[in-house]
């Protein structure tokens, strides 16, 4: 049995809004095995951000978790106190965001920020500085000693993101959450950062939860893929399974729509017609039924169950139950 570093079971998250209760996540199951890279792919409104903020316990005040379990290293994160959680965030679980400027303090030098995050360690400042420089070298900064004293705005976007990664990995976490870390970067820079993440993951042995809407990146980097739609996980499996044998109609359509996968020139590009459903007034049945080209009567009556479809390949769709 492969050991999981993170297990999410039946997680639901609601938001209080003035129009009613918005059911942002519903009965989400997710496994992140040790030393693996799991990709979460989904479009706007699928709940990726809510999922991440639930794991790091940074949900807004109007959020409510009616049920669920987030098990990390034998502890349920949802049951921890704020102090206990603070001991874990930044050390055992850390996070890299899409916009590096949101992680980096613009008025403090890079070096000082790298030293500051080591505040829990009882070692001398000299050692902290050396560790920081080592980390900055590892993430590929060309002149770590010079850049140590520079300010974030003096670095380019790609460098800033490398620094964010360095800061996230400084404490040696077992789980790194990467929320669209390359979306704001040019394609040629993205290639460099992905290579970096892959190398670092192999060296440090941590797991990565990589969230993105970019299918090509997920296919290249990840071992396992989780597909989310409108607050639910609709399919999960190994990268090979998902990209070569997609089972859920949404996954199938998503792969079809990616212009990169369309090898021949096409005048009319495929799309998924319609919009994501209203998460406040949910209707009965499958969440994707209004946009699914293969829906049957049962899809409007019953919500499909999360079942193992093939070797470690899970899906929730009535059509696969045969």
């Amino acid at each position: 049995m492969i050991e999981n570093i993170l297990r999410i079971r039946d997680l639901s998250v609601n938001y209080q809004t003035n129009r009613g209760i918005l059911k942002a996540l519903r009965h989400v199951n997710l496994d992140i095995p040790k030393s693996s890279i799991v990709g979460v792919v989904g479009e706007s409104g699928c709940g990726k951000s809510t999922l991440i903020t639930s794991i790091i316990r940074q949900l807004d005040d109007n959020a409510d978790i009616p049920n669920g379990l987030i098990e990390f290293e034998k502890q349920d994160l949802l049951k921890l106190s704020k102090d206990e959680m603070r001991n874990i965030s930044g050390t055992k679980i850390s996070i890299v965001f899409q916009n590096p400027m949101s992680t980096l303090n613009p008025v403090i030098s890079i070096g000082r920020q790298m030293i500051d995050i080591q505040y829990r360690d009882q070692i001398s400042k000299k050692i902290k500085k050396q560790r920081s420089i080592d980390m900055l070298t590892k993430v590929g900064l060309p002149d770590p000693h010079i850049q140590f004293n520079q300010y974030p705005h003096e670095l380019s976007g790609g460098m800033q993101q490398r620094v964010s990664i360095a800061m996230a990995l400084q404490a040696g976490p077992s789980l790194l959450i990467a929320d669209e870390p390359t979306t704001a970067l040019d394609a040629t820079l993205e290639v460099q950062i992905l290579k970096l993440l892959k190398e670092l993951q192999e060296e440090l042995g941590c797991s990565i939860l990589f969230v993105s809407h970019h299918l090509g990146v997920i296919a290249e980097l990840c071992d396992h893929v989780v597909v989310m739609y409108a607050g639910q996980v609709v399919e999960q499996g190994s990268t090979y399974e998902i990209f070569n044998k997609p089972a859920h109609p949404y996954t199938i359509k998503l792969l079809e729509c990616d212009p990169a996968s369309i090898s021949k020139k096409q005048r009319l590009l495929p799309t998924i017609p319609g919009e994501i459903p209203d998460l406040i007034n949910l209707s009965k049945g499958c969440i994707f039924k209004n946009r699914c080209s293969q829906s049957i009567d049962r899809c409007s009556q019953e919500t499909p169950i999360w079942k193992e479809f093939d070797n470690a390949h899970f899906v929730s769709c009535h059509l696969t139950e045969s």
Partner: protein
Amino acid sequence: MSKLLSIKNLRVRFRTNSPFQAMINKIEDPYIDAVRQVSLEMKEGETFTLVGESGSGKSTLALATAGLLNAEEGQIKFMNEDVTTMTSSQIMAYRKKISYIWQDSIGSLSPRMSVGSLITEAYKIHNLKDRDLKMESDRLLKLVGLPKQISERYPHQLSGGQARRVGVARAISLDPKMIIADEPTAGLDVSVQGEILNLLNKLKDDLGVSLFVITHNLNIVRHISDKTAVMYLGRFVEQGQTDDIFAKPRHPYTLALLSANLAPYSEANLKNRIELQGEVPSLMDRPNGCEFHTRCPFSSKHCDNEFPPIHTFNNSQILTCHYPLN
């Protein structure tokens, strides 16, 4: 098809220091060239795509073509009229012939105006008093596939996709000859990217409008573009028919861009992946010789001290490189 747009040796500069600062810091030339020695030709009914990464000068080139930025050197001829030397009344007439779809779909809409007023704004600006604004608004919304009721809404109430369509509706309001589309798919989910591109292609067929597209997403270029130009540090490194460029990219940068735009789970791509070293140099410190040599995996003799010559293949693929590939 007649020539629609013809640009020759365009140069667009921006000031980096005020005259006072330049004097104090002894900077001889306080400018950067955002666009340098750019030449292109576009025919009526074509889709011309500008491809490049951030800082390549794509938007600057587009804004200069639209007449919003001044050209330091060179010519921009639209339907045989030189945009760079137009008088203000000529510019007003020009503004009716080309329109712009902005990258920030919501930010480019005036926040306190309703959708209906926004898309008929051009009629008010050009004093076309004989038009029934409500009718025009309904007609334009129908053309872009939006419901009539959306004309009452305000920009912050629109989704990204809806705002983009409103931008398109506004752009076609005066029946322009050419639409400049700046990153038409930026921020859109993959499942709806096709919608906007299909819409642009449909308008091209129905209204006969030509498209000048700017994008860094190479994957969509193949499906919508007739001619493509690849930009780096303000210059064209390669341009030609899209099909030729995709089939046989000859400039190393083009090849790198193509291999960086990954197809999901395609083994072939990973093996031929070109990795560029380092980052894009600053415009204030342009490399000597071929400006791409600092990152080029094939850089060799002459690349760092001699500016590369222009090669022309099959009369349409043009590039500047010492050692073209393929």
